[in-house]
């Protein structure tokens, strides 16, 4: 009938992308930007967004020429061995991304909801739920976030409005004093947080209107950038640069300080943690979904969930590594900067050129 066709609408994709982009960026970016660029962080967000829009333009060129799904497109261009290797790279990226998000999510829970909670148990329960959500395909996932979208966004906007009362605009200055290097570093950090827009390459076969995927991704990036910009300004206006950079999750600290009118609730931080809990879960679930999808493709798995089980075991192991190895954050940052970022940007560029050349050759052949 309507469902079980493995197709999702543009609205669902947009909401999925927004939650994917928003969770981690709003949690970590303000601190990172305050540290690297101070009040100029707001310009870094604008510049990072511009870079992301440019990146979407390149992705759009690939999508326009791509026939079938991303994997089969790469197979046609580069052959089985190279495309399999590239898919292994993506698999590794998704596994690490999901594990990092599990680490952040568990950290969030332990910091704000369950201080005495066991890291192992929390991450295990979250991963079990992610496996359940992944098992039924992309339609179910899309519906979850389609429903959750406004439930997360409306309280966030309300809390930001309430928090805006405490903003001191003097804390937004001085601007243009951070230097080009710091500004560049901040912009790059913003762009890294917007990198998940490349998910649209994998989403094409599932989209009801694939020709409008890029527009959808642009809207997601715009909205996330605006939300991040507002959060950054509110945080800076409340905490100043130094405290914002010092706090681990400044946005949730802010939530604990916002006073609600009426006085029925003294603090809202526990309730507001739900926004980041659900957003981070969305991103983690995306990572798990694509990782298990790639495993299925690589091993030609049909109708079983062995691939998913293997991915979940790996996720659990990797998330424990993030927790137990104190340099894991730095290693992951290094991986993102020197491996993931160049490959994720260059690969679509190469694909675009290759597809364009192939198309030109084909057209030349037809004319001849």
């Amino acid at each position: 009938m309507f469902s079980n066709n493995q197709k999702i609408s543009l609205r669902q994709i947009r909401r999925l992308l927004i939650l994917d982009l928003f969770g981690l960026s709003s949690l970590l970016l303000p601190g990172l930007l305050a540290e690297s660029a101070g009040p100029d962080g707001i310009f870094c967000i604008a510049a990072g967004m511009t870079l992301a829009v440019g990146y979407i333009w390149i992705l759009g060129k690939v999508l326009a020429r791509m026939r079938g799904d991303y994997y089969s497109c790469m197979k046609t261009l580069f052959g089985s061995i190279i495309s399999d290797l590239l898919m292994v790279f993506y698999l590794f990226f998704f596994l690490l991304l999901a594990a990092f998000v599990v680490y952040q999510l568990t950290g969030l829970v332990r910091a704000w909801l369950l201080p005495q909670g066991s890291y192992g148990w929390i991450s295990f329960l979250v991963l079990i739920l992610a496996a359940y959500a992944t098992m039924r395909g992309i339609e179910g996932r899309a519906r979850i976030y389609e429903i959750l979208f406004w439930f997360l966004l409306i309280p966030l906007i309300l809390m930001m409005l309430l928090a805006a009362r405490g903003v001191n605009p003097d804390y937004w200055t001085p601007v243009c004093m951070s230097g080009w290097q710091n500004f560049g570093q901040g912009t790059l950090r913003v762009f890294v947080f917007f990198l998940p827009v490349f998910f649209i390459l994998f989403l094409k076969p599932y989209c009801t209107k694939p020709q409008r995927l890029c527009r959808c991704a642009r809207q997601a990036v715009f909205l996330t950038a605006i939300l991040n910009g507002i959060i950054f300004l509110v945080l800076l206006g409340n905490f100043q640069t130094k405290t914002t950079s010092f706090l681990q999750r400044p946005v949730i600290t802010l939530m604990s300080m916002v006073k609600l009118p009426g006085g029925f609730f003294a603090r809202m931080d526990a309730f507001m943690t739900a926004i980041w809990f659900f957003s981070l879960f969305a991103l983690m679930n995306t990572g798990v979904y694509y990782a298990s999808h790639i495993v299925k493709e690589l091993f030609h798995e049909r109708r079983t969930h062995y691939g998913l089980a293997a991915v979940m075991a790996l996720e659990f192991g990797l998330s424990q590594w993030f927790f137990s190895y104190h340099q894991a954050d730095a290693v992951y940052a290094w991986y993102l900067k020197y491996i993931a970022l160049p490959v994720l940007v260059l690969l679509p560029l190469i694909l675009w050129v290759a597809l364009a050349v192939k198309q030109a050759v084909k057209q030349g052949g037809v004319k001849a």
Partner: protein
Amino acid sequence: MSTPVSVSLQQNIANFQTMFADCADIKTRKMKLGKELKTECFIAYVEVAVGNMLLENSVLGKLLNTLWEMPEDQILRYLKENSFGISDVTEYETMEEAATGMLTGDAIFLIDGYDRALKIKDKGYPNMGVKETQSEKVIRGSNEGFAESIKVNTALIRKRLRTPKVKVKETFAGRRSYTNVDLVYMEDLVRPELLAEIERRLKEFEIDGVGDSGVIEQLTEGSWLSPFPQFQTTQRPDRASMAILEGRIVLLTDNSPVALILPAGYNSFIQTSDDYYSRWEIASFTRVLRYIASFLAMTLPGLYLAVTNFHTQILPTDLLLSFAAARQGVPFPAVVEILIMELAFELLREAGVRLPGAMGNTIGIVGGLIIGQAAVDANIVSPSVVIVVALTALCSFAVPNEEFATAFRILKFGFIFLCAWLGFFGFLLSLLAVLVHLSHLESFGIPYLMPFVGPDLNQYQDERDTLLRLPLGWLKRRPIYTRDGARIRLKIQEGQKGVKKEEKEKKDVFK
């Protein structure tokens, strides 16, 4: 285009049978009249609506008895000259008029060689003599409820939807009980794939006996393990008729007053009949209340445990101190208190259901007032827990569908367990688990959370009848359950708009 009644009886019968194909509740009978039994005639009627037509004291019985004793050559002349003299006989020139006349609950009489159809009045549809519905009470609207007999139930629907497009497909379930199961639907609104799917599922199982529609429900639903029902149940013929008008299928089972409606979704379980009979403001207000109730019926005790045991910083100090004071002297942890009260409440509920009406009410009062108060006085539970449990019970009663409310009642215990163990993290985890489950759940291919998900499939029109029930004038399209191309249910003529405009202009002039 209308079909005139032909002089050929065979032609008329063929037309009639085309019109009422797949209508198991329409009964037809061919007879021969006259002294030598050479003149053919045909009688059609809605089963149950028309009694024993051959009874001497009925109009039809009298007419037939006269015609049996009459020579063939005089029958037509007699009918032309005298039938109109008989009271309660109406003459129709077209088959469509005749069909509509029959659907008002009377019999249609056709005779060979006569190009008119005669409608002969009988006792009509079953009415208030049927019975009043015990559940799904409404403030405004019909009080009729389904009966035990499937024939009466189809007639009760037919009474509300008097069109030959309402089809009643008859089938049987139960190898030994051979129970009659009817699928009632609107021919031009139902999705053919939906009809095919329920027919396939009905053929998929073989069972000894079917005691109630609940057996059919459990054997034909897609996700057996889900606590959420995938069929909507109703005891109200008006609710069933409205569902048919939305392109849904009503499944009636003999010996059961509970009809099953398919497909169903979260939103349809929250809707009630009088949502559409009352003004939109109050309908929307009660709809919002029911949505909140459905959420709290599942989460409130868990939320209480999470806040009071793990996140006391949420509450203002005064409130927190009052909670602490209320718990003074209670020897059990809060989770045990909640479980004791919840189990006591479930026991009271079960006892109340099994006892006869008046005693059931007494049990409710005894349990609620005396046991609750005694438990607080004896320091077994704190007053705040009694309030939480009572509020949760109220919320579960506010959900209009019993099966749907039961799902929340069961899930509530999962929330209690996880919240007692993990606090607000447990609450978020269980909430997400329920959401993941609901987002995967489908009822006959329709996502359970529709139209909160995928509203674009019906041009965002279904959203007008969800959390809020917008004015009826705006609900112009049928929901997604209806087949494509048949979605318009309300047309407001331009002329009426013009009249409204004119009235407004007049008012402006008076101003």
